[in-house]
């Protein structure tokens, strides 16, 4: 049974300016007895999440809303286990799949096929499982013979088709999606949306960070509102009859 629990979770980023990254300043800080340390080391800490408590269980469809920099992406990365809370407790029960940072690990000199295997393996597939998804991605991406040539010959849209295809070939349990897509022509958007809907249906817990009220209404049952890393509101999504998962708008 998939389940996620966050208890009073805070995540603080150290922001290193160039001086903090240098060894000289750290040595200097030691030799000056640390008196200058605050200034010379220049580490500023930013609290990206502040005391978030949250419980997600089987069947939950959660939308994250908030301005840029409000902590949505940090929360997603925390739920994915990439960031570790600096305070509070998190327990993640279930396998996490993510659709964000598409194209991470794309090797431009290698062919589309080789990149499918690499990305699928990075997302948790074994070599054999990675090879087994190739037909599905061939069909979805419609890249045809381009899959045999190096990815650096692809347009941005083609790269998106490839990495989106791989990211959504998973069987997700806990699915975390950041609003990142947008490339690709209208026709691709329609197909991507269809694929996304099916992909979300297969997941047991789904979290979407988005600026689009329409997408949130379509895919989510409840939302939490973040501001400056704090949870400032929580509400149930009222479904209007018009909002169905019809393929007409951009995918998340």
């Amino acid at each position, binding site marked *: 049974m998939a389940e996620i629990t966050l208890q009073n979770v805070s995540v603080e980023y150290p922001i290193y300016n160039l001086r903090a990254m240098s060894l000289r300043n750290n040595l200097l800080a030691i030799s000056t007895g640390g008196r200058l340390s605050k200034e010379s080391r220049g580490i500023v800490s930013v609290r990206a999440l502040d005391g978030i408590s949250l419980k997600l269980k089987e069947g939950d469809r959660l939308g994250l809303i908030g301005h840029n920099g409000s902590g949505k992406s940090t929360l997603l990365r925390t739920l994915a286990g*990439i960031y570790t809370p600096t305070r509070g407790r998190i327990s993640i029960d279930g*396998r*996490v799949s993510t659709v964000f*940072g598409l194209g991470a690990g794309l090797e431009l000199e290698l062919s589309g096929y080789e990149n499918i295997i*690499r990305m699928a393996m990075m997302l948790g597939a*074994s070599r054999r499982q990675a090879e087994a998804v190739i037909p599905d991605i061939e069909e979805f991406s419609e890249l045809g013979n381009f899959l045999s040539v190096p990815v650096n010959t692809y347009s941005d849209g083609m790269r998106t088709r490839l990495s989106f295809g791989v990211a959504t070939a998973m069987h997700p349990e806990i699915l975390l999606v950041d609003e990142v897509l947008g490339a690709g022509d209208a026709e691709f958007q329609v197909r991507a949306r269809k694929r996304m809907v099916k992909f979300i249906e297969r997941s047991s817990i789904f979290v979407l960070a988005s600026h689009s009220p329409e997408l949130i209404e379509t895919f989510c049952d409840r939302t939490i509102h973040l501001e400056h890393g704090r949870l400032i509101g929580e509400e149930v999504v009222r479904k209007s009859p018009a909002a169905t998962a019809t393929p007409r708008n951009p995918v998340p």
Partner: protein
Amino acid sequence: MVYQPADGDMLQGLRKSVAIAWYFAWSDTRARYKRSVLGPFWLVLSTLIGVVGLGFVWSTLLHTDKAAFIPSLAIGLVVWNMITGSIIGGCTVFTKRASIIRNIKTPSLRLSLELLFQQIINFAHNLLVVLLVLVVFQQPLSLVTLLVIPGLLLVFINLWWVIQLLGFIGARFRDIDPLVQAIMPILFFLSPVLYHSHQLGRTQIIMAFNPMAYWLDIVRGPLQGVVPDARIWVGTILMAIVGWALALWMTKAKGARLPFWV
């Protein structure tokens, strides 16, 4: 078609990580030489040129016998290339993969293993040069030669912790990479690549403090029919234990900070 990654136990997870690291190391090597005719054999050629060039110049300068000097130099140089490749590459092993670390949950040990595998692949190619030299200069093969296998394994184990540890330090302090690049050339002359430790006479004591001297001797000895001293074996094993303790401590203490450092 969908795939369902198995949750699996730790052993399975380990096997999977090794498989990914291997596949990535191999495909990265292929990517690097994708459009060149010789491919990875450029590496072999450059090693060969190095061995021939340095071999003739230094054997003349040092007034040594080429038949004794060149095999020793070839093995030394090939091992040295792997050591420097790991050390210099180790400084940027995590920063170069920042986009992966920030977007996909990835064990840092898998990334350092990937670099080690790349170095081992390069090393395997370079072994052709060693083989060639051993044949040309008719080095005696015996059971002692087999000792090169545990010797190499110990070197690999040591290089893995070096990469892991330097990866963390290099991600936190960006000066480490240029600093290491600046001191590697001088370390070349302070390590027994062009010479043997015993040729230093009384000053060979400084080799006791050079980890790379141990790694060079433990591989070169067996290939030249010499059983490495017990001191070399014990030293290398001790380094592996202490180094791994440090690297694992670093991974446990700072692993959570890595996505913010890179």
